[in-house]
């Protein structure tokens, strides 16, 4: 079972849990090596156009995705790197007024591989809810619609 499990917590947090069929050392390498990151840092708004920088404490990665000919940028700044267990970084989005979220990623050994637990703290509760689209009105509606699909 490698499915993504996600839930919101408090006002601004989202907790994401995912299992990977590889030991923490290997997952750590894939999460922090620039060349490997280029292979999996996909997005819902377009292909990754460029990725520069380095995952070192105080260092940054600059992501550029191509959204229908327009660039979407993200700057990740690394505040803490404790191989192969803990990454704390900030993600700033220039196209969204440099709105910043803080992400803590923990890797722990689990049967058959690694458990990854990410705590994403959004800048505001509005930003969180917008990202999740789980507002009480259309969000719940979407949830119900998807449930219907699921149960069909």
């Amino acid at each position, binding site marked *: 079972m490698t499915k993504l499990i996600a839930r919101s917590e408090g006002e601004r947090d989202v907790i994401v849990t995912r299992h990977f069929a590889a030991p923490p*050392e290997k997952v750590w390498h*894939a999460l922090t090596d620039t060349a*490997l990151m280029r292979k999996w840092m996909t997005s819902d708004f377009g292909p990754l156009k460029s990725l520069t920088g380095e995952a070192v404490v105080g260092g940054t990665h600059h992501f550029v995705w191509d959204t229908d000919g327009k660039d979407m940028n993200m700057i990740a700044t690394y505040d803490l790197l404790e191989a192969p267990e803990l990454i704390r970084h900030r993600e700033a989005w220039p196209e969204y007024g440099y709105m910043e979220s803080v992400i803590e990623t923990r890797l722990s050994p689990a049967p058959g591989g690694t458990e990854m637990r990410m705590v994403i703290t959004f800048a505001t509760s509005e930003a969180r809810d917008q990202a999740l689209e789980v507002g009480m009105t259309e969000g719940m509606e979407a949830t119900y619609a998807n449930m219907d699909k699921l149960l069909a």
Partner: protein
Amino acid sequence: MQNLDARLTALADPTRRALIERLALGEATVAELARPFAISQPAISRHLKVLEEAGLIETRVAGTSRPRRLRAQAFAETADWFGPFFAALDARFRALDRVLAEMPDPSPETATERTDP
């Protein structure tokens, strides 16, 4: 559709969501599931019953053991429930699965790193 309310109610409880999180890592017996919680095994069993009646988990018969596991079908579209944000994360992690599968086993260098304090 008649299961819909049961599923939403089942997922509306933090203990039951924690049980789901645990089961996402693999099947487990009631005793294993109860261990991290400060509540009794019968209480855990009641939560598991709610999850099972909602169709979110199932019981496997393995000799005298009765491990619980997630019903893969019920969670096949989990990412969809949460909209594009999780769909994107899900796609990203699937790509990461492929990268991990292609990566060679840790080199001696990596092994040295691993023993670092």
